[in-house]
């Protein structure tokens, strides 16, 4: 049997050149896209695109095995004719991997049908998302009219495509800011643009590549070559300082005096960061960024959070080595193209208070006990976004901070609370000295903004458990409780406090170590069926699964856990 240890899992959360090409095309209004593909490929691409964006028109040639084997030009021809009959502003044909294997003569079909403004994009098999996007971007330049008059003080925003996380809000905010200094956006290349705007892209005087670590740099260089449009991409407009610098740089290009506008924006920003809930929370906050499909966000967010609001970036996982080098200046743990397992281990090791990432990050971190998460990347599996919550620009900087504070502060805050009207007295319980000392040490590891109440909660929960077991509060009990109830996730740090012989604590760090069901700590009664289902849970997550299931049972008014309870909880988690 083949050794599977070296099998890397990152492909699961990394889209390919095919997605890149399709996403670059799908966002253009008035143009139709045909995916020359089997129906399975097509429906997956269509559905997954609609998870992240509002609406798009995508058509398919619906190829069967026979079509592929015998040549699918006729299917292409018939589909193209139907689409051409609708008279769209342009037609983009993206070929699927199967077609790329058999190398259909799509160009010949287009020539035969004679449809105008029809582009063919062949994403390379094994190519990256960026390569797919750039291939489509550059192909689209064939539609751009070079002989147009320039619009004074106008720019193109280069880079946003469908399924770029939060592109719509970023574009909206940057457009608002540019308008504030009298600069208009000629075309967003490509998401949300009309086909007419794409065709008139050469009317802009300046290109602004807003996601330079992800996509758009190739086409920007090409546009400079073909149409003489210079490009700015050196400043990522994330954070207050960089948003101001970005706008100032655009203003300087057009010789616009932006001082008054920038002063107003920065005065507002300063008032915001002076408020009670910003530095009090952010100064003791740690964050992990897992943004392989949004390297630009990884760079911009990490620099902003660290430099302007004092958040410590404990880990960054991304796919662009150049972006990684930049983040290394402020973060010791930078992973490039890490597997999901590697990322999960790093989450546990660094214990961030909040994680920015995609669906997989949310899932693995949640399984490992992390509660505070901010979606910032694809795949999302399901996420609704609009113009409202940008990460870029002045509004984006504010949203990043308010999102962080509101998610984490209230999350941690509520974790430290007991019941609205709980039991009035549970009686006095004695503490072993070692447990008291452990509590002091754990206290030092909890951020000040919740330390006092968090300790109170740990104290109460320890006594509750000790009462249930009819013992003093031992260091073992305190360890169990701190593992379960300490706000967010500080297990990595806790290991410094507890000696190895203070078990029974879950062996979360020992990934490969088998954790027998019998070694787990149960606070409710579990029947055999329920315990048996724990065998299906990977060892490192078993204790967390017990805790989560018991919480679920309590929330549903149950005093025990049966097989059906585990099943319900599993379904609720979408597993």
């Amino acid at each position, binding site marked *: 049997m083949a050794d599977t240890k070296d099998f890397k899992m990152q492909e699961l959360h990394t889209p390919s050149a095919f997605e890149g090409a399709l996403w670059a095309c799908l966002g253009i209004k008035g143009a139709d896209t045909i995916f020359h593909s089997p129906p399975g490929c097509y429906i997956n691409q269509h559905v997954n695109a609609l998870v992240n964006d509002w609406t798009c028109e995508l058509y398919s040639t619906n190829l069967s095995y026979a079509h592929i084997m015998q040549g699918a030009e006729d299917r292409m021809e018939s589909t193209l004719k139907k689409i051409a009959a609708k008279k769209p502003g342009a037609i983009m044909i993206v070929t699927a991997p199967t077609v790329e294997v058999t190398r259909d003569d799509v160009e010949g079909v287009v020539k035969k049908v004679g449809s105008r403004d029809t582009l063919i994009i062949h994403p390379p098999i094994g190519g990256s998302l960026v390569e797919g996007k750039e291939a489509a971007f550059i192909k689209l330049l064939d539609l751009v009219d070079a002989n147009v008059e320039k619009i004074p003080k106008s720019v193109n925003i280069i880079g946003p495509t469908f399924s770029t996380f939060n592109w719509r809000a970023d574009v909206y905010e940057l457009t608002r800011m540019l308008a504030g200094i009298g600069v208009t956006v000629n075309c967003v290349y490509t998401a949300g643009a009309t086909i007419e705007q794409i065709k008139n892209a050469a009317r802009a005087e300046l290109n602004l590549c807003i996601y330079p670590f992800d996509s758009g740099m190739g086409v920007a260089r090409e546009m400079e070559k073909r149409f003489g449009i210079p490009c700015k991409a050196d400043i990522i407009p994330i954070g207050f300082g960089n948003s101001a610098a970005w706008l100032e740089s655009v203003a300087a290009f057009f010789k616009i005096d932006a001082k008054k506008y920038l002063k107003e924006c920065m005065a507002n920003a300063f008032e915001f960061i002076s408020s009670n809930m910003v530095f009090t929370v952010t100064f003791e906050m740690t964050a992990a960024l897992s943004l392989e499909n949004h390297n630009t966000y990884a760079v911009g967010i990490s620099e902003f959070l660290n430099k*302007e609001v004092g958040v410590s970036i404990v880990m960054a996982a991304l796919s662009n080595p150049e972006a990684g080098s930049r983040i290394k200046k402020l973060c010791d743990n930078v992973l490039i193209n890490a597997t999901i397992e590697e990322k999960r281990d790093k989450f546990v090791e660094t214990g961030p208070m909040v994680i920015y990432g995609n669906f997989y990050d949310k899932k693995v971190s949640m399984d490992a006990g992390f509660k505070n998460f901010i979606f910032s990347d694809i795949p999302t599996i399901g996420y609704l976004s609009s113009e409202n919550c940008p990460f870029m620009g002045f509004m984006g900087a504010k949203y990043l901070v308010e999102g962080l504070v509101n998610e984490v502060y209230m999350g941690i805050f509520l974790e430290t609370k007991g*019941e609205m009207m709980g039991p009035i007295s549970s009686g006095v319980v004695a503490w072993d000295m070692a447990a008291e000392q452990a509590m002091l040490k754990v206290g030092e590891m909890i951020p000040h903004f919740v330390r006092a109440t968090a300790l109170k909660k740990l104290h109460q929960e320890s006594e509750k458990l000790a009462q249930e077991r009819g013992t003093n509060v031992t260091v073992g009990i305190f360890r169990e409780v701190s593992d379960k109830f300490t706000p967010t996730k500080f297990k990595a740090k806790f290991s410094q406090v507890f000696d190895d012989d203070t078990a029974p604590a879950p062996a979360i760090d020992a990934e490969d170590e088998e954790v027998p069901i019998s070694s787990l700590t149960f606070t409710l009664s579990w029947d055999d069926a329920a315990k048996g289902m724990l065998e299906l849970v990977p060892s490192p997550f078993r204790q967390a699964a017990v805790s989560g299931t018991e919480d679920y049972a309590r929330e549903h008014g149950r005093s025990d856990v049966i097989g059906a309870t585990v099943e319900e909880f599993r379904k609720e988690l979408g597993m």
Partner: protein
Amino acid sequence: MPLKHYEHCCSTIQALASLGKIEGVIPLLHGPQPCSYQNQVGSMSCRPANLVTAGTLVNKSDVIFGGEAGLKQQVKNLYEKYHPRVIVIINTCIPQLIGEDIEGVIIELKQEIPDLKVSTCLTGFNYPRSMPLGSDAAWVAVIDTSEKQAKVPGSIGLIGRTGQDAGNLACLEMFFKKAEIPCFVFPTPHLDSMSSIVRAEKYYPIHITPWLTCRHLSEHFDGDVEFIEIPVGIQGTSNFLRAIAERQNSQKLHDLVDDEEKRVRPELEKIRARFAGEKVRMLMVDGPANEVSVGKIFAEFGAEVFVVPSMKNKFYQQEKKIMQERYGVTFIEEDFDLLGDIIDAVKPTAVSVEFQAQPECVSRLVPTFINMLYLCEYGYDYAIDLGTNFFKNMHRPVYETWQGLMKKYGG
């Protein structure tokens, strides 16, 4: 007359929050709706459980005709629903203003519900400018419900500050456990263990706030009270423990202190070297009395410390003298209009203030610590942790970034 008031909240919240941390006790807020709302919301951040405030919602007719009947009924309602051992009526400004006969209500209730103990404390007007004394008043009310018990020979009692100390005094308590000196601490998370404080032969307050509590214990339950000093920082903790070791004639406790000093001294020296290099000027303004205690820790590190005290009781006077003589700490006891006036005068490296003062300080780009978040500050390890992480937690580079941004764009 100052233009603003920089304390965290009303003494009523302090009483409510402190009592809210003691199992077996239900605080009942006797006051009008705005008082209930504000104190309910304001105390939420520091109450661990039983998050809903029971109150009487005194209305206009109560003010005219008296709210005693409503109060009595609400005590009965609370008792029927939760069967607490003790209900403490927090008597706020309005009932004080109209001179309600709370004691009379309590006497009547004692006859009607013999199992229930009801006591009261005065907050609001009674401590218009010393929020932390809300705790002191609340503790007296709790002690009022205690019965006399036999003293434990050779025992001591440590009298803490707020409800936050309840369950968080292990850093001191463990020395006495190891030295085999019978020790009772107050407050604790449970009414039963709290009531045991009356068994101590001698009371040692560990903060400046519990002056009333100590006096009450001494007068009603016997036992001497001695304020040594607040056991914070390295020297403060050692002095406190050694003083008790001498009085208890405990070589074991002396030895423990020797060991601890040996352990933490190298860390302290590192911290002092860093503070000497950075020349820190700390302005400590009001707070839950930790402007004095945490101020003392900073002074030991070598910072130049300026303290605007939240109270001026007898224990404060003693601690102030210690801090002035030992570290040359400056105390600012005169009224001031705005915090900015003091910041301009002192030109601090960093300030420690209450939440509501933060916008004023950050907008001046003065590194700011929220004093309410620096509690349970007793013992050696707290000080070492505070000193080791002080510069990291101050985040001076962030302020410098903003200085640069505002200079460039802010005009």
